[in-house]
């Protein structure tokens, strides 16, 4: 056991102003350390140093991104804000979806931990985002997992991908949350730096919204859930070996692994326990413990409240012996929550925790004044203004510069790449594309995820968006999609991010839901690279301006920087998530074209010769250059309105969005989902290759019952949405038949489309 005398107290710190501290090892810059000294009027104690260093890290303080993220708030109009109950600055955004329901959703990254230890990294990524949603007072309802890996056939991908997928499945399945969608993208730029983003969506009654505030002097702070251990304390272990007295005999720790192990069972019980606490009205404020652990929870709760806070750190239940205050404050042990509770409710609170066998401990209370004071066996080890820890970290306006190679990249257009033209070549290209890692069936991955649990999943993989029912009586539900094509963003970060937004928006709209809100996870390289900062700035502006054009707000998000191998950054990957609302899930539009012979297949939107950043250029030529497809937000909005109207009036029996791989790939998927067939007759005079493989935005393949065709096409014509009748459903054909290309049987298509991932990862 560490003896009390060895602990660095405030009193001692004040008396030993010149004691050298390992702030650089903890990631603080000289001036940042000096600022802490200025704030405190003395040197920080070990515990304070641990707190400031972790809370002022890029991950927690958004020090490089803050100046740019402000643009989201500046561009959100009162009208866009109308349905937003909580937005940027809260744990997760909350949207009013009608009938007294509020829905909250958010994406977060767990990229670096998942590279080191794929299973646990991904698993704890899911655990973390679920607690964020829970902390809003909502019941978590579903998860999604946008993923990026290095080349599909790279040996390291064989290590990382199966582990990540097993971890997401292992945690989510055990938690009882259906996985309703996600992404799997392969690109060499992610080889040393995979992206593991996790999204959670939850729902609550509007009046149950809980915000992370420590209000009401005298209210108790209760820590509950798992015990606190040495996991994830990473760099802070240097403090333990470098005690204030510099004693050689100090209980130095070897550098600890910063990997955390998840315990989904504990989290499941914690969820049920929290929901019961909310139901009973026993919670004044609540905060999840994620990155930065107690440092974050205590300083954020106190800083958002109306008083100060006192915490007795020695009361925290521990899993390891001899932990120091600094270690306890920085531990990232999973499955913990922190609540603010009225003194009169503490007994009732504890009874609920007992029933669920959840460890709960009163560790402090809300106090008068505005200091966060933390004691250790009666001695003060932290005495700080909480806002300086949680919200007044350093802010950097990093240099921004358009990369010098950007012009060359843009000039390297794909127009001269040899294109297939004979029927055989076109047929081969359809199959080659369908089998390519980015377009092939994701079944190998999604089959490891439970999408049935809770019984509310209406659409899941391979639908364009996941959809869940939130109210069994009325049938009200939500749809969510996440998207990003990093190649488009690389070619043009502003337009590329808008394309990501447009695609997620369209994916929601094709289900018949009305898009209402946006979240994001901005994965970029190093903010110290001006080129990366330029990408970031452009991406934020593109997303914000796109949202204004669509009239829906960004309600929250997450930034992940330093995604690079050596000095090579990943493709800029601003993953955009869009949430949509549907008043009755029974009118959802399915993705497969169905088995009704004679139903008309219509292509909505316009096809142009657009191959910059396309999957075809990537798969066939390994080419990246030119401009991404043009984006037109007004068109996307019109398309969505028409789809929703089509769904309401029963005019559309299926819809599938066109994206990577173009029309050919959309047809392959739409046929295979229902094991059906169709006959396609391209319009006279089109360039078949362009028509089949271009990735022009704003297009959707719809199936329209024969009887509805005139009504539906009239509506499109009247509202100015271009449409083309391209063929009919023909289930008996059991093949994709394209005039000028030939026929591909369903069996061959299926084998081609589904064989790729099993061959690589089984």
């Amino acid at each position, binding site marked *: 056991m560490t003896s009390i005398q060895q602990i660095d107290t405030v009193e001692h710190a004040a008396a030993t102003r010149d004691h050298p501290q390992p702030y650089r090892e903890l990631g603080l810059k000289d001036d940042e350390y000096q600022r802490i000294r200025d704030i405190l009027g003395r040197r920080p104690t070990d515990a304070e140093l641990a707190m400031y260093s972790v809370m002022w890290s890029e991950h927690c303080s958004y020090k490089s991104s803050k100046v740019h993220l402000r643009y989201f708030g500046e561009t959100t109009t009162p009208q866009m804000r109308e349905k937003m109950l909580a937005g940027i600055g809260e744990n997760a955004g909350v949207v009013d979806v009608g009938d007294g329901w509020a829905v909250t959703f958010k994406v977060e990254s767990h990229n670096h931990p998942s590279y080191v230890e794929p299973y646990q990294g991904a698993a704890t990524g899911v655990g973390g985002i679920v607690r964020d949603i829970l902390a809003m007072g909502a019941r978590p309802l579903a998860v999604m997992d946008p993923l990026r890996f290095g080349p599909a056939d790279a040996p390291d991908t064989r290590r990382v991908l199966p582990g990540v997928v097993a971890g997401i499945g292992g945690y989510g399945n055990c938690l009882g949350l259906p996985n309703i969608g996600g992404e799997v993208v392969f690109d060499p730029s992610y080889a040393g730096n995979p992206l593991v983003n996790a999204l959670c969506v939850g729902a609550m009654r509007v009046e149950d919204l809980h915000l992370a505030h420590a209000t009401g002097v005298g209210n108790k702070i209760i820590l509950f859930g*798992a015990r606190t251990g040495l*996991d994830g304390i990473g760099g802070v272990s240097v403090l333990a070996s470098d005690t204030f007295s510099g004693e050689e005999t100090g209980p130095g720790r070897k550098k*600890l*692994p910063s990997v955390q192990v998840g315990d989904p069972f504990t989290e499941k019980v914690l969820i049920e326990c929290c929901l019961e606490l909310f139901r009973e009205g026993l919670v004044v404020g609540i905060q999840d413990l994620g990155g930065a652990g107690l440092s974050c929870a205590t300083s954020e709760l106190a800083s958002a409240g109306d008083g100060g806070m006192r915490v007795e750190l020695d009361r925290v239940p521990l899993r390891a012996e001899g932990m120091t205050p600094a270690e306890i404050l920085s531990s990232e042990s*999973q499955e913990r929550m922190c609540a603010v509770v009225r003194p009169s409710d503490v007994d009732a609170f504890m009874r609920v925790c007992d029933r669920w066998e959840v460890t709960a401990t009163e560790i402090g209370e809300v106090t008068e004044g505005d200091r966060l004071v933390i004691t250790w066996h009666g001695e003060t080890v932290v005495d700080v203004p909480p806002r300086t820890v949680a919200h007044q970290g350093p802010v950097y306006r990093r240099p921004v510069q358009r990369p010098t190679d950007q012009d060359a990249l843009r000039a390297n257009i794909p127009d001269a790449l040899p294109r297939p033209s004979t029927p055989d070549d076109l047929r081969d290209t359809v199959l080659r594309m369908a089998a390519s890692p980015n377009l092939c069936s994701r079944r190998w991955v999604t089959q490891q995820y439970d999408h049935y649990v809770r019984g509310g999943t209406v659409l899941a993989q391979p639908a364009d968006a996941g959809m869940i029912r939130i109210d069994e009586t009325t049938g009200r539900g939500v749809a969510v999609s996440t998207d990003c094509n990093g190649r488009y963003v690389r070619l043009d970060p502003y337009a590329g991010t808008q394309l990501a937004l447009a695609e997620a928006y369209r994916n929601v709209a094709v289900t018949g839901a009305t898009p209402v809100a946006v979240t994001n996870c901005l994965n970029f390289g190093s903010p110290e690279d001006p080129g990366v900062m330029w990408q970031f700035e452009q991406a934020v502006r593109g997303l914000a301006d796109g949202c204004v054009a669509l009239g829906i707000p960004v309600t929250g998000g997450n930034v992940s920087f330093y995604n690079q191998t050596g000095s090579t950054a990943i493709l800029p990957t601003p993953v955009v998530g869009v949430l949509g609302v549907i008043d009755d899930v029974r009118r959802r539009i399915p993705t497969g074209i169905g088995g009704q012979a004679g139903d008309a297949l219509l292509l909505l939107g316009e096809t142009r010769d657009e191959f910059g950043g396309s999957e075809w250029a990537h798969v066939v030529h390994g080419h990246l250059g030119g401009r991404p497809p043009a984006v037109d937000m007004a068109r996307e909005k019109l398309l969505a309105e028409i789809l929703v109207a089509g769904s309401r009036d029963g005019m559309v029996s299926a819809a599938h969005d066109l994206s990577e791989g173009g029309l050919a790939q959309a047809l392959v998927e739409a046929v295979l989902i229902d094991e059906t067939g169709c006959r396609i007759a391209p319009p006279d005079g089109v360039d078949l290759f362009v028509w089949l493989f271009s990735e022009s935005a704003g297009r959707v393949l719809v199936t329209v019952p024969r009887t509805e065709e005139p009504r539906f096409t009239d509506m499109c014509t009247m509202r100015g949405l271009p449409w083309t009748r391209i063929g009919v459903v023909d289930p008996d054909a059991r093949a994709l038949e394209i005039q000028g290309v030939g026929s591909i049987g369903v069996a061959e298509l299926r084998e081609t489309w589904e064989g790729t991932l099993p061959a690589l990862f089984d």
Partner: protein
Amino acid sequence: MARVVVDVMPKPEILDPQGQAVAKALPRLGFEGVTSVRQGKRFELEVDDAVDDATLAKIAETFLANPVIEDWVVRRVEP
């Protein structure tokens, strides 16, 4: 032919939800007095005599155990 056992255990500082679940359940089943449980893996290998200790160590380290979160011990046993 030799028999080799590789024991792989979660590192002491790493959370062991499995062992914890067992430890919590025991008193409920009426078994008192077990103060701590950790759960790991045991591998039993049959190997050709040509396989040397260095190779075994490598197999354990790179494949059977995950050095980030686990400790391991390799030993040859009597058949």
